[in-house]
């Protein structure tokens, strides 16, 4: 049999396979070059970029929980200018699409970041993080209010001609309503899920473990929630979906495709194994070959219920 076709397309971005790296878990790519072949995955998503450099939260910022981890990095990043200056040149040398994860402290900042990245050739598209718990305007958190989400996406949409992917928060009552608002505002694709808000406590110290008190839960623990949301949204909304949450293996990734995702992102798994994303991509190809599936696209949404 011929090699199976693993390519997919998200919002006009062609990927050699459906495996991307999740924002915030893969630095700016270069950190992993020693451990894997960056040209064996579908795309690299950068750490979230803001208009200006951002300090992030105090430490401790991470803690392990059962089957997962909490992080409260607080979106520390070099800022969009430094990204263009210092990080983009390396990414240019790699033949893999780079998607910039962006966020702003206000509508205006979102728009400005998108505008600045619009003309950067290394950036194939933008993933708009509306799910950061600390970012709000007028008391409304963009990631949990459909109207606010609509507005962010609309502004970003106007600021760039590049593909706009919106990354949704799972901390909502109605994920479909959020997805619909983003679709209505012109999003080209949806990423889900970001982290679930959680907390860990140090009994002896009687303090929260994280300096920020709460943090975002990621890892295998959240996979069932992520799969459910991908499935719900994929049945209701016409946009391509990038499935994220607890993906450790090719089997996990393939389950997301069945649930309706066109691509996936590997996050926390990069910490357990810096070559995880490449292994997931290879595992998918292996599965297709083993099972005589010619094209990975046959699996997308192929869940029988």
């Amino acid at each position, binding site marked *: 049999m011929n090699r199976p076709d693993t390519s997919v397309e998200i919002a006009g971005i062609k990927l050699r396979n459906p495996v991307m790296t999740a924002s915030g878990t893969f630095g700016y790519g270069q950190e992993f070059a020693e451990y894997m072949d960056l040209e064996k995955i579908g795309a690299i998503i950068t750490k979230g970029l803001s208009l200006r450099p951002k300090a992030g939260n105090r430490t401790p910022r991470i803690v*392990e929980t059962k089957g997962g981890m909490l992080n409260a990095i607080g979106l520390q990043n070099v800022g969009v200018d430094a990204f263009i200056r210092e990080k983009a040149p390396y990414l240019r040398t790699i033949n893999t699409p780079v998607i910039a994860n962006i966020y702003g402290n206000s509508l205006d900042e979102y728009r400005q970041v998108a505008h600045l990245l619009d003309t950067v050739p290394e950036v194939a598209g933008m993933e708009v993080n509306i799910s950061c718990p600390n970012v709000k305007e007028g008391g409304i958190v963009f990631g949990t209010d459909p109207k606010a989400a609509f507005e962010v996406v609309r502004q970003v949409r106007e600021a760039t001609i590049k593909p706009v992917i919106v990354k949704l928060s799972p901390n909502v009552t109605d994920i479909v309503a959020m997805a619909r608002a983003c679709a209505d505002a012109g999003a080209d694709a949806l990423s889900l899920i970001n982290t679930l808000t959680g907390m860990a406590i140090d009994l002896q110290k009687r303090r929260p473990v994280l300096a920020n008190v709460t943090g975002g839960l990621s890892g295998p623990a959240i996979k069932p929630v992520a799969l459910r949301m991908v499935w719900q949204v994929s049945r209701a909304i016409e946009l391509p979906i990038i499935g994220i949450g607890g993906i450790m293996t090719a089997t996990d990734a393939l389950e997301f495709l069945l649930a309706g995702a066109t691509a996936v992102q590997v996050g926390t798994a990069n*910490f357990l194994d810096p070559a995880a994303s490449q292994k997931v991509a290879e595992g998918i190809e292996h599965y297709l070959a083993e099972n005589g599936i010619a094209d990975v696209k046959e699996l997308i949404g192929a869940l029988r219920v």
Partner: protein
Amino acid sequence: MQFKSLVLSNTEVSPGYFRMRMTVPAQLSAARPGQFVMVRVRDAIDPLLRRPFGIYDVLILEPDFDGGSPQTCLDILYKVVGKGTETLSTMHHGDHLDVLAPLGNGFDLGKPGEEKILVGGGVGLAPLYFLAKELVKTDCVHLFVGGRTRDDILCITEFERLGIETYVSTDDGTLGEQGLVTEVLEKELTRRKGKASIFACGPHPMLKAVAALAERHGIPCQVSLEAYMACGVGACLGCVVPGKEHTEEAPDFRCVCKDGPVFDFQELQWK
């Protein structure tokens, strides 16, 4: 690099402290003192994350039969504190581990011929032995080591075998002087007022006190820090410490994993 290690031995050297020897690729013989490793304790989700450990020693074992090839090995010295180290402590010769190494930047060995003062608190001693082995080649080395009680003073005979003068202190006086390692260190520094540089590893309060001493006595001092780590390669930004000039507006965070774990104390903020 990432590789699979074979556990060669795993011995309890003091109650609750283990020394593990594992095979590593030959390239690891180029590891520098102060660098560390990230160990995946088990191919499972509990514990989930890798655990960081300093390099206690790197050595090359001669083959024990004709025609065999020498085997590079790496030792870690660790304290059982939680799930990860507990699991590690149950491993035997023949078990395998998934390891990232060498990570981070090591100690700057400084000028040869200078006097070198090593300061270790508890299991913070771990990276100092590998360092000491290098330093004794050219320098006069002193070791100050402290712990809560006698059982927390690890492996000093090995340092002594290198010909290093050791000063031991324990909080409860069960071994060496009673008191904090920094108190003993301070007395010695005051007595000497000589040219020396300090290499310290241990709990944060100890490092802070050592940094204050270095400041006061105007001598160079490098500290090896610990931090909660997820990735170990500078990607997650979980392990940061504020650099000297760090402010909210002009952030200057350093990654312990990538920019450290060894820092010149003057690079850092010690609030």
